[in-house]
């Protein structure tokens, strides 16, 4: 990225023109990702966990493309990364609590031998 342009924020004129073909590539990659996700629906995997993991993996790649290129996160200032690091920390905490807590759901506890209702 240009760090010392006159007109500031972060992209000069040429710089942006240079990005247009990248935006097009990202667009087609996103469409391809969608097609792959839907295509995988017709493939039957034995394990539900594997099916979910693959679908979420493809979704994560798509999310990375949108955030990285369309939202310019690949070339942002430290401040933004700081805000996002805090968000990711709390989001991971939230999901960890959710997964941890799901063990205590009534439908799971009745199957455990040590639990006497």
């Amino acid at each position, binding site marked *: 990225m240009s760090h010392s342009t006159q*007109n*500031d*924020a972060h*992209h000069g*004129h040429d710089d*942006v*023109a240079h*990005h*247009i073909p990248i*935006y*097009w590539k*990202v*667009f087609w990659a*996103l*469409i391809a990702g*969608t*097609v792959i*996700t*839907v295509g*995988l*629906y*017709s*493939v*039957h*995997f034995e394990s539900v966990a594997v*099916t*979910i993991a693959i*679908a*979420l993996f*493809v*979704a994560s790649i*798509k*999310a990375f493309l*949108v*955030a990285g290129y*369309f*939202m310019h996160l690949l070339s942002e*200032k*430290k*401040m*933004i990364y700081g*805000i*996002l690091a*805090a*968000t990711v920390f*709390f*989001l991971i905490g*939230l*999901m960890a*609590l*959710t*997964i941890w*807590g*799901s063990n205590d*759901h*009534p*439908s*799971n506890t009745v199957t455990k031998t040590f639990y006497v209702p």
Partner: protein
Amino acid sequence: MEIPYTVKPRPDTGLYNAKVGIWLFLASEVMLFGALFSAYILLRVGALPGTWPEIKTAWPHGLLNIPIGTFNTAVLITSSVTVVFAWAALKMNNFARFRICMVITILCAFGFLSIKSYEYNEKFTHYELRLKDGKAFTGHLEVNGKHPGFWDFGSIYNLARLTEEKVEKVKFVADPPKPKPGEKHEGNHEHVSMEVVTSDIVHLDAFLPRNHTFFAIYFLITALHGLHVLGGAIVLGYFAFPGSKMWRTDPERFTNRIEVGGLFWHFVDLVWIFLFPILYLL
């Protein structure tokens, strides 16, 4: 008083203020949607087996329209790329192209919402039926020979309403049996039309939030997402037309507004990228 750092980066953050603002807002949005995703996980993990007999699993897979959902995903991705092109056009001093890109973005937004409202209507008129002899079906209901209209809440029935209105018989057009994921559709695509006596029914309800936790979380998350699409479309519509006066007086600040509006728009797209597989496919 003039608002500081609308164009020039603030020395300590290295950013114009609106950008820090939108990212803080998006961070809170991540937590909002994150909480709803976690609710989805808990509801799904906790769904009791046998609560949805027709599908033979506790969690109702494949009740949403995948081709339409896929098309809507493509519509949202298109609007995401056009909004970034609109911003790039301003950076390159091309106002005419900026406006074309914004108009496409806004049309995509309303296209997305129209398709979504059609999908909602499909669920309002789609029923789950269980009979006393243990048979279960999904399909469409006809009471007194009337077809429900678009978003016609007055014509949604359940067992309690049929009993209350003393409707003795209804016509039910059952969907063809569903193949399991991975299996090929074999032969049977027939919709079987049948007469059902009200006293034989154990459960009858449309695919509404009250009928299943899946539909509760589906309507909640997609409606909240839909409101974000609507809000984004209004803001981008303002920038594209009345708000674009600023381009003549303060072009750099205007360009930054488009970048910030675009960041919100991409976030809305990003949420959908996760919503689509978890609601439609998994």
